[in-house]
Every structure is written in structure tokens, then in C-alpha cells.
């Protein structure tokens, strides 16, 4: 399985080509084909989970080929403890999203083609170790996302899609500039991230600073960090359920992943310089601001979108601390948020499919009508509010524990969100699921088998990771400790000394 990463990345692309040649009215065939081509990466992912050696800090499953020789651009794929979790998360969520897209009736062929292309882009971003390749995948991911929101979205889909697109494009441009600067900065010129990491000590302080900030803004848009976050609620509200799941479950993580993958090891001195204000303070602000905004929302999806902003703040705060608890908590939180928020969006999708609206005050008493659905909802909601024993608690408590050692005042502000989070989650739960049954929805059918299949595996993961978090922590801990050390020990070695 030398090329497992390439398989995981390009099998969905093959799936897209397969769907492309199918007649456009064979909906069933197209759906099943798409499912099959997303199940392959999942199966490979399961194998990868067993085979991956978490005790190694370096890259594994590395593939290296010359691609565009003139510019020394290479095709380098490889994963370490940081990226393996994201690869697994992507492989897990994609088939679930295909199932959640089963009742898409408009432009079925186009939808599934774009979705499969999207998976290729996402996988590629997490596997690419050549900056140029990374950038290409980053852009590949952007396009299908734009169309999936812009064509299959809600009433304001055009606005939301263009907003998403322009915002991300701004980030891409900044990333492109930083990437080119890096490329031209050393000899021989290369986009190879591993080489760039080795050159880190030679980058002058000022160069590190502006390149770091350029990349940071690009990634912060993706996270999304305040004040670059306003595209997210709009995109979520308009996107179809499955796309919201991917957006919150995988795409947001690309922001924090990018910071850890590129900013941290390549610009460690700048990381030390900016971590406090750009990551810790902003992250804490994200946590509290997102939670407070979530509380005021009337649309279920908007509420969950703001809760994502809040929960991603933990990732930023955790990584800023450069403590082993903080950074492990941050990456674990990336994974846990991926599963929990995927559940939340799927749950919203279930009622939206039935009632065709998402007004929190427009339901009531669903618990009496849909018991199975309510049971799974309870798991997801309490995981989201960080109930101990469920997955998100572990990552949040690790982040906060690490943060306490880093800065107590920020930690207290961040930890106060446990009250706010419980507030908005339980308030929504009460208004939608409890209370007298709304006669309009007294006959809503409980979960279908297909919906159950999308939610149940995630619920199991949420439960298991609460009791056995080392199922993920064992993969990431050594890599992240090494990354911590890289940043903590970094100093700029002057160029003269090197020669």
C-alpha cells in the first residue's frame, strides 16, 4: 500500500469521471456509484488507522515524484500525526454526506460529480507536502464548494456562494503571495514543505512576520476567525445539509490545519511572536463571541454555525499555548468538532427535510413525536455542550488545562463559555424538542434507516472517544510534541553564520 494516499485522494476523482459518463436521468445508479467511490477511501482509511504508526514523528506513506521539473515542482504526498486525523475525518464524513444527499433531486449528476471532486480536493489538501500541490488542491476544493452552494442552496444561494468564494479567494491570494515569496527566498528554489521547514532558521524575523500574517489571514478566513467569519452563517444557511456537514466538519479545519502545517514549522519565530494576539486572544474572543451570537439566533442552522465559530476558538486557543495539553486538545478538538457538528447539521437537516423550515420557534414537542431522533439528538447536543464522558469534553478540557498554564485570565474568559454553550444548546433543545407537541408536526415520521445510518456511527464515535480518547491522541501526541518543540526552541540563525 505504498500509494495509499494517492488512492484515497484520486479514487473520488475516478468516481467523478465514472459519474460523468452516466446518463443524467439514472439517479439511483449515480447515487450508488458515488457512494461506492467514497466508501473506498473510507475502507482505506480504516486500514490506514490500523497501519499508521503514531509513535513516529516524521512523515509516513510518503510519495515523491517530479512534476514540473522546470520550476522544481514536485508531487509529494505524506501524512504525520497531524494530518492523519484530518484524512480519517474526511474519509469518514464523505460517505455519510453522500447518504445525506440521497434526496437531492435537482441536477443529481452534477451534484455528485462536484461532491466527488470536492473530496479529492479535501484529501489532497491534507496529504500534500509540496506547497504548490497544496495550493492546487486548495483551489480544487474551492470550486465545487462554490457551485454546490450556488446551485443547490437555498433562496439566497447566489449571495452566499459568491461571498464564500470571494472571501476564500482573498485568502488564496494572500497564501499565493506567501508561497511565492518562500519559493524565491532560498536556493535551490523549491515548494517542498519539508525542505522549507528545514530552512526555517534562516528566515529573517521580518520576512517571517509578514509571511506569517499573510498566511494567517488566509487561514483565519477558513477557520473562520473573527472578524472574517461572516461568510460562514450565510454559507451554512443556504447550503444543502450534506454541504453544511462538509463545510463545518472538514473545511473549517483546513484553516487551523494550515496554521499548524505551514505557519508553525516554517515560521516558528513569527509564531512565537503572534500566537498570543492572533491565536490565543482571538481564539478566546471567538469562543465567547460565537457563543453569544449563537444564543440570539432564530434559525437552527445559523445557531449551529455560530456554535462552530465558538468551538473552533478552542482550537486556536489550544494551539497558541504550545503546551502538550493545549496542542493535543486543539487537534483532538478539530476531530471532535468534525464529528459533533456533523451530527448537529444532520439533525437540523432531518427536520428541514420534513418541515421545510428551520425556525427554532416554529416546532415544539418533537421529543414526543420522534423518539429515536430525539435520543441521537440528545447525544449530539450534550457532546456539543461538553458533557464529560463524551468526546468534546476531553478536547475542551485539554485545551483549557493547557491554556491555564499559558494565561489564566484568558482561560477564565474562555471557560465561562461552558455556561453560555449549555445555555444556547439547551434553549434550542427546549424550544424544538420539548414542550407541547406542535399539531402541525404531530405526524412527522421518525428517522428513516438511511438517516439512522448517517447519525449512528457518529454517535458511537462521540461516545467511544469520550471514554477512550487515546484512540486519537495516540496518533497525534508525538507529532504535536515535536511541533511544539520546533516552535518553542526556534531562533533565527543569521545567514552569515550559516555560510
Amino acid at each position: 500500500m505504498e500509494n495509499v494516499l494517492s488512492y484515497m485522494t484520486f479514487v473520488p476523482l475516478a468516481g467523478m469521471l465514472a459519474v460523468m459518463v452516466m446518463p443524467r436521468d439514472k439517479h439511483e445508479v449515480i447515487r450508488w456509484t458515488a457512494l461506492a467511490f467514497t466508501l473506498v477511501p473510507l475502507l482505506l482509511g480504516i486500514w490506514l488507522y490500523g497501519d499508521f504508526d503514531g509513535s513516529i514523528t516524521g512523515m509516513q506513506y510518503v510519495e515523491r515524484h517530479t512534476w514540473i521539473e522546470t520550476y522544481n515542482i514536485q508531487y509529494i504526498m505524506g501524512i504525520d500525526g497531524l494530518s492523519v486525523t484530518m484524512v480519517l475525518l474526511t474519509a469518514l464524513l464523505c460517505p455519510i454526506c453522500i447518504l445525506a444527499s440521497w434526496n437531492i433531486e435537482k441536477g443529481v449528476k452534477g451534484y455528485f460529480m462536484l461532491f466527488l471532486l470536492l473530496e479529492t480536493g479535501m484529501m489532497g489538501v491534507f496529504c500534500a507536502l509540496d506547497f504548490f500541490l497544496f495550493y492546487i488542491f486548495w483551489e480544487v476544493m474551492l470550486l465545487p464548494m462554490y457551485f454546490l452552494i450556488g446551485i443547490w442552496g437555498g433562496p439566497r444561494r447566489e449571495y452566499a456562494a459568491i461571498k464564500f468564494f470571494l472571501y476564500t479567494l482573498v485568502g488564496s491570494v494572500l497564501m499565493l503571495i506567501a508561497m511565492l515569496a518562500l519559493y524565491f527566498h532560498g536556493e535551490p528554489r523549491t515548494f517542498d514543505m519539508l525542505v522549507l521547514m528545514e530552512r526555517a532558521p534562516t528566515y529573517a524575523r521580518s520576512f517571517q512576520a509578514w509571511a506569517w500574517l499573510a498566511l494567517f489571514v488566509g487561514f483565519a478566513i477558513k477557520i473562520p476567525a473573527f472578524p472574517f467569519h461572516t461568510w460562514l452563517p450565510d454559507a451554512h444557511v443556504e447550503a444543502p445539509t450534506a454541504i453544511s456537514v462538509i463545510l463545518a466538519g472538514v473545511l473549517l479545519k483546513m484553516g487551523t490545519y494550515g496554521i499548524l502545517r505551514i505557519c508553525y514549522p516554517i515560521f516558528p519565530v513569527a509564531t512565537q511572536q503572534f500566537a498570543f494576539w492572533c491565536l490565543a486572544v482571538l481564539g478566546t474572543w471567538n469562543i465567547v463571541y460565537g457563543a453569544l451570537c449563537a444564543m440570539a439566533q432564530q434559525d437552527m442552522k445559523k445557531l449551529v454555525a455560530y456554535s462552530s465559530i465558538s468551538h473552533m476558538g478552542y482550537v486556536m486557543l489550544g494551539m497558541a499555548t504550545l503546551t502538550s495539553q493545549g496542542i493535543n486538545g486543539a487537534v483532538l478538538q478539530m476531530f471532535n468538532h468534525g464529528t459533533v457538528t456533523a451530527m448537529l447539521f444532520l439533525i437540523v437537516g432531518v427536520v428541514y427535510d420534513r418541515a421545510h423550515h428551520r425556525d427554532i420557534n416554529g416546532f415544539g414537542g418533537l421529543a414526543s413525536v420522534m423518539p429515536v431522533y430525539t435520543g441521537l439528538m440528545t447525544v449530539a447536543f450534550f457532546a456539543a455542550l461538553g458533557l464529560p464522558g463524551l468526546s468534546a469534553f476531553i478536547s475542551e478540557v485539554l485545551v483549557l488545562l493547557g491554556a491555564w498554564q499559558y494565561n489564566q485570565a484568558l482561560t477564565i474568559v474562555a471557560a465561562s463559555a461552558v455556561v453560555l454553550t449549555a445555555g444556547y444548546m439547551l434553549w434550542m433543545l427546549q424550544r424544538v424538542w420539548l414542550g407541547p407537541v406542535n399539531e402541525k408536526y404531530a405526524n412527522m415520521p421518525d428517522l428513516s434507516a438511511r438517516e439512522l445510518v448517517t447519525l449512528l456511527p457518529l454517535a458511537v464515535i462521540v461516545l467511544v472517544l469520550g471514554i477512550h480518547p487515546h484512540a486519537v491522541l495516540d496518533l497525534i501526541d508525538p507529532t504535536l510534541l515535536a511541533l511544539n518543540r520546533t516552535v518553542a526552541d526556534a531562533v533565527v540563525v543569521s545567514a552569515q553564520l550559516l555560510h
Partner: protein
Amino acid sequence: MLETAATHEAAAGVSYALRWIVALPLAGAAINLIAGKRLQDAAGRTAVAVLGSAMSIASFVCVVAAFLRLRSLPVDERLLLDTVSSWIHIGDLDVSIALAFDPLSAVMCLIITGIGSLIHIYSYGYMDEDPANWRFFGMLNLFLFCMLTLILGDNMLVMFVGWEGVGLCSWGLIGFWHSDHTNTAAANKAFLVNRIGDFAFLCGMFLLFWSLADSGKATLVFRELAHAVPALEGMTLWGMGVATLVTLLLFVGATGKSAQIPLYVWLPDAMAGPTPVSALIHAATMVTAGVYMIVRLNFLFSMAPFTMQVITAVGAATAFFAATIGLSQHDIKKVLAYSTVSQLGYMFMAVGVGAYAAGIFHLLTHAFFKACLFLGAGSVIHALHHEQDMRRMGGLRSYMPVTFGTFLISALAIAGVPGFAGFFSKDEILWRAFLANPVIWAVGLAAAGMTAFYMFRAVFLTFAGECRVEGHAREHLHESSWTMTLPLVVLAAGAAGAGYLGVPAALGGANHFEQWLAPVVELEHAALSHAAGGHDTTLEYVLMALSVATAGLGILLAYLIYIRKSLSAATFAAIGGGVPYRLSFNKYFVDEFYYGFFLNGVLSLSRALAWIDLHVVDGIVNGAARVVRISSDFGGAIDHYVVDGLVNGTATVVDRCGAAARKLQTGGINAYLYVLVLAVILVLFSRAW
């Protein structure tokens, strides 16, 4: 390395399979919550009730076995341990899923599973008309699991799992009848107020952990903490001793869970839940978790005299303040709820003055008599078809003799009548409070007098006099079924007799209870034996006589008002122009203040921020797009394609209801944009190369 050193210092402990104590209720919960509905549909509600009760009783049997094993060990080796698995091991943080059973946990587990089992049996009778028995018994079992985890947890993080887990169960059971918004609002209130406490608890735990890490002994295991905390001596943070700060934060956590000032407000509302829940969770077990936590960490709290003073003051104030509210309530469950808040105040008073064993002793006796009182009230409420207003009860003595008898015994116990359980435990606390500070004692004594009054007011209004029950319920007045009366009788026996476990030396007893807990509260024990020389039994007798007299006075007053009617309640209500009465009846308007000030404050802030987010933050984004569009009118030569994209973007913003939007939504835009996007990327790349 340092951690291993700490482990060696800690007591070795005997390996014992404690996991069954928690696993059985968990299994019951899992089965009932996942498959219970089908089970109930197929085999009737008896099946789910029997399953739930059987798991609880089996857990009780396991606890008894562990207790016997523990007792067979030499006094200073009484510790059973069960490490189930590792849990989180990152850097200095190394916590396992591990359970520990020592004399303190033994007492707590016996109360929880013993009274818990009785309440399971009782619930079979009480919930006879409810279609969701499976959910009720499932949640009850889940509660047992969480509560036992809280008690047995070998480290603070496992304890915290139980700590918040009981909050979840409490939420689910307060709002059990969830089609009524009053109930679910009460459930949410309970969870949120508790979360405020949990937030402080978390911060306290972090501070403790990192302070110990600075001294090289990072641990959260209770046994190791006992040896590690002396290192906190002399450490300061924000101008305060670290030990003081940690204990204050943990105490805030305790005020949430154990309903003390200022976080007590959720408990009276929690009475919205079914009465067996009030008895088990909101009287006998969960609400005592704060007291338990402090006693568990007594070595830490003893290092912080300031915190101890705060605890004493808060406990005494709560005991008094809640008792004054209890005087005027009409709802029988509300009376009992404020009584619980008040009695918990006594327990905090006890631990505050360092009388840890006395605090736990009162926790034990209170568990019996308060559970019995709640179940008795439940028996009445059940018979009256969910009537809870005492003004519409009366004369039930002849219809419900068992309920009346057991309720009376428990009322005598809580009032502190000599011979009954509450007498021994309350007097122990008052005595120790007097030694620490006579003012605290006086406050406690006054609260005791009020307790006697409001309890007998409840007894007389409910069971004596003429029957004020009306209509349909009157015709069907009857004693409850045996599944309900049997637990009442057992609990009443405890309310009458449990006090004899801890008869003080002054009354010729050996105080077995204190002896049993001695290994857990070594410090207190040592201090006591040290002071034993100058023990003044005369003073103790005088104080005892005073408290008995006060209780008698309270009962007499209730008798004169509600039986003899030689005094009128209205006269008392009119004192001071009726202001004190109205304050008491309206619970001092604390809820109104919290709602108006804190809840509305947060909600207004959240609405304001959401508005700012939509109109200012996002407004800047849209405004920026507009600026780009305008500048493009002047020349637009920078990058034709990017700007064009922005123009289109702005068009949808500005004119999304207009003709432009309609044109954009025709679908042709997609093909156009596809080309556009590709072009943008091509341009970007052509420049890159």
C-alpha cells in the same frame, strides 16, 4: 518519575472489582433507554420497572459486599481500588478511569444504592399511570451510575464526569414530563445554574493541578493529593494563597450542586420533577455531592482557614434564610425543597468548622428522613391526583395511616426531637459550631426552631384537621399500594434509628460513625482527640437542652396555630406591615433579581452582539464590496476579472430583490461564473509563472 514517587507515598489499597457497582446500573440504563420502549410495549411496564429496580438492588448488594470486605481490613488499610483503564495521558496529566472505596465512599454508596433501590421500588407504584416508564427507570439507573461514579472516582476528573453526569440526569428527570414548558424551564435552570458552579470547579481543578505541577507533583488523584497539597503552602496567586483560591473555586462548584447561596435558586424549581426524583436526587443524594467533595478533599480545605470561614458563613446563612422561606409556602414540595436547602446549609456549617464527620453524619440521617418526607408527600400527591397545595389537603391521617405515621416520624427526626436521627446529627453540628463561633450556633439554633415549626405546619395542614380535599379525589382517598408504603416504612425506621450510629460520648455513646470515618478525616480526628482533655460535658448538655426546647417551641407554635387555632397565622403574617411575610412568601424576589439582572443581561448582550455581527461586521464586508465596485467604475484596470466578480457579488447584495437578482438566478450565471473562475485562476497562475 515524580508521579511514581507520589504513588508510593499513597496508600497501596486492595484490588477489588468495584466496577460492578457502577456497571450494573449503567447496563440497566443502557437497556432501558435504548430498547426500553419496545420492552415496555411487549412485556408491559412491570418489565422495565423490574429491570431498573433489579439493577439498583444488585448494585446495592455489590456495595454491601465491598463494605464487608472493607470492614474486614485493618483500620488504616481500609481502601479498595479498581483501575478500569487508562483514560487521558498527555504530558503531566495522567488520569485513569479508576474507582476507590474507602470508609467515606462506603457510607455514600450505601446511602445511594440503598435509598436508591427503595425509591426504584416506590416509583413502580408512583409512576403507575405514566406511559414512559422505560425512560423514567432508564434515567433513574443512569443517575445511580453517575452518582456512584462521582463518589467512587479515584481522581477529580472521574469525579467530574459523575458531577456533571448527575446534572444531566437531574435535567432529564426534572423535565421528565416534558410537554409542559414549566418543567423543562426548571430543568434548564437547574443545569445552567449548576454549570456556573462547574465552571468555577473546573478553574479550581486547573489551578490545583498546575500549582502542584510547579512543585513537581502534578496529580489529580485524591490519595496522592493528600500527600502533595502541603506543597501549596506559601504559594500565592493574585495576592491570595493558592490553597485558599483553589478551595474557594471548588466551593463555588459545591454551592451549585448543593444548592447554597448564591446558587440555590434551581432546587425549589426542580420540584417540577416526579416526586421520587425529588426524594432521590434533590434530597438524599445528588445535592449532597458538594458536601461529599469537601470532605473528600478535607486535607486541602483544612489548609485554607479563610475558605472555611466562608463555608461556615454561607452554610449558616443558607440554613437560616431557606428556613424563613419554608415558613410560608403552600406547596408541600416547596416546603420540603427549602427545608433541604436549609439542611444542606447545616452540613456546610459542619464542614466549615472542620466537623467533617458530623457533616457526613447529618448527610446520612437527612437522607433517611428527607427521602421519607418526600416519598410521604409523593404518596399524598399521588392519592390526590397531583394536588400539591396544602390548603387543599387536611385530615388525611385516617385515610393514609402508614403515610401519616412515617411522615410524622420523619418530621420528628428533622425537628430534632430527642431519640430520633436528626437530633443526634444536628446537635453534633450545633455543638461543634458553638465551639467555633457562638454566633453561628445561634443562627443554626434559630433555623432549627423554624424547621420544627414549618415541618409541623406541614404535618398538621396535611394530615390533621378536617379534610379539605374536593371533588373526585375525595371519593377515592386511599392508602398507597405496598410498593409505595414499604419504602416509607424502611426509611422511617432509618429516620428513627440511624442516629444511634453516632451517639456522642456526652450521651454515653461511642460515636461509631465518627470512628468509622476517622481514617478519611485524619486531621479532624487528630485535632479532636487532642482537645478531648478539656471537654466540657455540662456545656454540651445545656446546649442540647436549649436546642430541644427550641424545637419544642416550634412544634408548639405550629400546634397552637394549626390545631388549637388559638393563634392565627394571619396575625403573624401581618407583623411589620406584612413585609416579612411577603418577602418570605415571594422568596425575597431573588429569582426576579437573577432573571432581570443576569439572564436578561446575557440575553441582551447576545442580541446586541448578533445585531452588531449582522449589521456592523458583515456590513463592513458588504460595504467593502461596494467600494470596490464604485472604484471599478473609474477605471477598473487593476484586475478586470477579480473586480468583475466583486461587482456581481455586490449586485446580489444590493439588488437582490431587484431585476438584477432575478436575472442572476436564471441559471445562466453559473456557466458564466464557471468560466470566470477558471479565468481568474489562469490569470493568477500565468502571473505566478
